[in-house]
């Protein structure tokens, strides 16, 4: 297998390399790629959509259809991980561990037995290690700022590098950071699986629904200028706003899927104990 792999890799490499002879050199401003379509985008974006960040405009408007599916891909991946790995078990057989928060005493509860209802105990993982104070504190401090930054990245995608994907990933990472710095249960308490799993398609629905709304106004799918009467703005600004709406949808979808996939993968599908 190794030799076959080597041969195939080399063959492919040679084929691809041989073709580079006809390619423009690196950074050539006159290459077809830079002269055919891209000048249009660069020169007309402002006129068409009034979004200065061309990448955002192309991503969410000119090629907004691609991006909608991109979001759907993310959602599909989340759903795929869910269906492949998720195991619904009411309770793992065996003993459970609880920790008395104030004293740090660990209590082992036999299978079937119950602890009196009290806020003093928290459930802990079987492989539990005492939390490091520094990590816990720093993360706790950082997470709100990370989330704030994520929101900024989504909202400011029109004017600076950023957008729904980037912002969504940052938001998702903040929750994952929480899960890593404390444990999965804490993170799941903040973001229940059901909420997560429902928000995930909701994000995509915001995107696709915005597009579908345009159909209802008699325009083509994803033609945001159809939303002008709804938003009380001119068609071009409507495009800009449309982009913002879908970016928010993307942000929600990406954030939730990232959390979902992480939770499922790290807990092996049981959604109880993480890394």
């Amino acid at each position: 297998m190794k030799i076959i792999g080597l041969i195939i890799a080399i063959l492919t490499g040679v084929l691809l390399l041989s073709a580079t002879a006809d390619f423009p050199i690196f950074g050539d401003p006159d290459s077809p790629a830079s002269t055919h379509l891209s000048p249009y985008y660069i020169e007309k974006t402002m006129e068409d959509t009034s979004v200065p960040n061309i990448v955002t405009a192309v991503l969410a408007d000119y090629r907004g259809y691609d991006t909608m599916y991109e979001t759907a891909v993310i959602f599909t991946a989340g759903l795929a991980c869910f269906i492949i790995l998720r195991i619904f078990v009411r309770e793992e057989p065996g003993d459970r561990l609880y920790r008395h928060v104030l004293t740090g005493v660990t209590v082992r509860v036999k299978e079937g037995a119950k602890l009196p209802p009290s806020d003093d105990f928290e459930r802990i993982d079987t492989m539990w290690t005492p939390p490091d104070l520094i990590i816990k504190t720093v993360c706790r401090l950082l997470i709100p700022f990370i989330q704030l930054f994520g929101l900024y990245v989504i909202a400011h995608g029109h004017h600076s590098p950023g957008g729904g994907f980037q912002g969504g990933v940052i938001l998702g990472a903040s929750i994952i950071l929480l899960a890593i710095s404390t444990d999965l249960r804490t993170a799941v308490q903040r973001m229940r699986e059901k909420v997560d799993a429902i928000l995930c398609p909701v994000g995509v629905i915001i995107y696709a629904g915005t597009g579908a709304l345009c159909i209802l106004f008699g325009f083509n799918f994803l033609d945001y200028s159809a939303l002008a009467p709804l938003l009380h703005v001119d068609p071009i600004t409507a495009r800009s706003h449309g982009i913002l709406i879908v970016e928010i949808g993307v942000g929600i979808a990406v954030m939730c899927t990232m959390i979902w996939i992480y939770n499922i993968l790290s807990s092996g599908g049981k959604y109880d104990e993480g890394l």
Partner: protein
Amino acid sequence: MGDLLQIIVAKYNYWIYITLMMIGLYAMIGKNNLVKKIVGMSIFQTAIILFYVSIGVKKGATIPILEHGHGEHGHSAAALIVHAVDYVNPLPHVLMLTAIVVGVATLGVALALAIKVHNRFNTLEEDEILAQIREK
């Protein structure tokens, strides 16, 4: 020799991406460990992303965000005139955002499958798994 070197230097982006791609492809076919194959897959995808992004590069151009005044709607006419040569090609960036997302999605699903395989066979080495299947 000098010519070849010049070609390589002028188009080094392609050489780099192809090398990366070959590494990734080899790992996907030749490696025995399922997770190593997944790593190979990621390298492969990254190589393609590099390739695309390098297409968009233009010498002497800046990032594709137009210079604009903040907050005010009254753009002066001069500010609207944009020269395409000043900004890099935005399209490959857009495409690669998509490709990155696809890569992440595939990676997630692949890892989920790998976990499932590991649950079943208690190993991720392909030959050991095949041996187990044959034993049955």
